[in-house]
């Protein structure tokens, strides 16, 4: 096989796939952030902690209740989502009349508390979570070995992203959400219960984080700091895609995962910062983000 700039195709395709898998997590997480920011105008700093909580809930379901991966894929996001609803009702809803900064500070504090609690009880060494039996092993594609579970992560994230995009952009409920994002007062004056929508939207947004956490559990060890590391990159993804843009969050998530993978091939030293460099450039050239709507 030919080499590209001295890079064997196995390496290139391997890193592309790795990038796509990272991109899957970026996409699901930044999608949740974008949905929440759109309607609540809150930058949800607790997102990484709730992603981590999703992974931990899956681990607990398995080890304390014997509930396996497949049910956990639904149950864990549900539990995280309900927890999100409680956060919204008891805390966030009291801050809507204040500056956005207060919501950011509150969720940042919550993230620290949630992480601290898990660190206290489970340490930082990480807990193992088995890949479900049907997804163990992998396929030899000739140019590389593709683990089945990683392929599943990409498929599952695409499905969830598409379903969320469809629900928001193509359904009646989504039309309420888009309208309330623009003008909640008027939507309320049409007889729609906007506070209920806000509550469920936050619950749904953090449930997406919980879902990503369950997907991540068998790949990365279940660890209290797993969200902390990821979330900073995800915030950069959201900024690049444009705050509150659904399609922007999804496309940018996958795209930047791939860009990161390619950077690892051609200039490994830059792979940790490439997303932030792109963020800085986007902020200078198109501050509303690649897919952002100008108000």
């Amino acid at each position: 096989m030919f080499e590209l700039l001295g890079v064997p195709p196995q390496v290139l395709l391997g890193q592309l796939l790795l990038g796509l898998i990272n991109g899957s997590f970026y996409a699901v997480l930044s999608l949740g952030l974008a949905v929440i920011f759109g309607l609540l105008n809150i930058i949800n700093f607790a997102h990484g902690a709730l992603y981590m909580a999703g992974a931990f809930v899956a681990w607990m379901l398995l080890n304390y209740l014997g509930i396996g991966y497949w049910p956990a894929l639904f149950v864990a996001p549900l539990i995280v989502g309900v927890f999100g609803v409680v956060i919204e009702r008891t805390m966030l809803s009291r801050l809507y009349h204040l500056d956005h900064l207060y919501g950011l500070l509150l969720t940042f504090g919550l993230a620290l508390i949630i992480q601290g609690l898990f660190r206290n009880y489970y340490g930082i060494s990480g807990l193992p979570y088995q890949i479900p039996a049907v997804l163990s092993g992998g396929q030899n594609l000739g140019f590389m070995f593709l683990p089945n579970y990683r392929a599943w992560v990409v498929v599952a994230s695409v499905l969830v992203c598409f379903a969320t995009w469809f629900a928001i952009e193509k359904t009646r409920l989504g039309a309420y959400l888009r309208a309330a994002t623009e003008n909640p007062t008027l939507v309320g004056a049409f007889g729609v219960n906007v506070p209920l929508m806000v509550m469920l939207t936050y619950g749904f947004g953090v449930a997406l984080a919980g879902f990503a956490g369950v997907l991540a559990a068998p790949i990365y060890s279940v660890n209290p700091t797993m969200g902390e590391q990821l979330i900073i990159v995800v915030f950069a993804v959201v900024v690049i895609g444009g705050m509150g843009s659904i399609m922007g969050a999804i496309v940018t998530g996958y795209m930047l995962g791939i860009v990161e993978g390619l950077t690892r091939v051609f200039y490994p030293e830059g792979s940790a910062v490439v997303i932030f460099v792109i963020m800085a450039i986007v902020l200078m050239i198109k501050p509303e983000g690649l897919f952002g709507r100008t108000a």
Partner: protein
Amino acid sequence: MTEPLSNVLLKVQDLRGWYDESHVLHGIDFEVRQGEVVTLLGRNGAGKTSTLLAIMGILAKRAGSITFNGTEMISLQPRQIARLGMALCPEERGIFSSLSVEENLMLPPRIADGGLSVERIYDLFPNLYERRKSSQGTKLSGGEQQMLAIARILRTGAKFLLLDEPTEGLAPVIVQQIGHTIKALKDEGFTIVLVEQNFRFAASVADRHYVVDQGKVVDMIPNDQLEENAQKLHDYLGV
């Protein structure tokens, strides 16, 4: 023209309202009977729009009494007021840019039976039918946006409409079309409160006119007595 008082649908008494600390309504009194078209006339800043927003519950800091169909609404939320059968077409029109024309039209939920069918709405507003697949509601012309803002509240079953300056900034031919629409709606049994700056337009559609000045209703003039009150109105409105 005078109907029995039992037909009073909306009764506003001593309505006061505030934006934060700024006191804008100082005791608004008026009533609207079933099937009437009533206008609130007045200069800029007299409190006409604020009155509509207070009725709808959007101006939250308010006091006095607003009864609709016998229900006291002064402490209700906007969404509860909407569910009683009242709908607002706001001054800024409030067309959603992230919704298509059709989505904008279908957005307000049905709150009662008896709303206009979509076919009847497209019959009233043929332009909207042509533009219904348009991707962004805000890509419509000003007149089309105004029609859309009126059209979408006709579907819901609300029979009491608050229209805030529907003719503002529109070409005369469009103003005329909106006038025809309002008369058609009156014939269909809608009751309408209209805020207007355009006095000639108001005179062409309304049964009665309330004059608002400095946050108070200062006079009421039936449309058939406009002639003899022309000078008085002239002084009120400063036209």
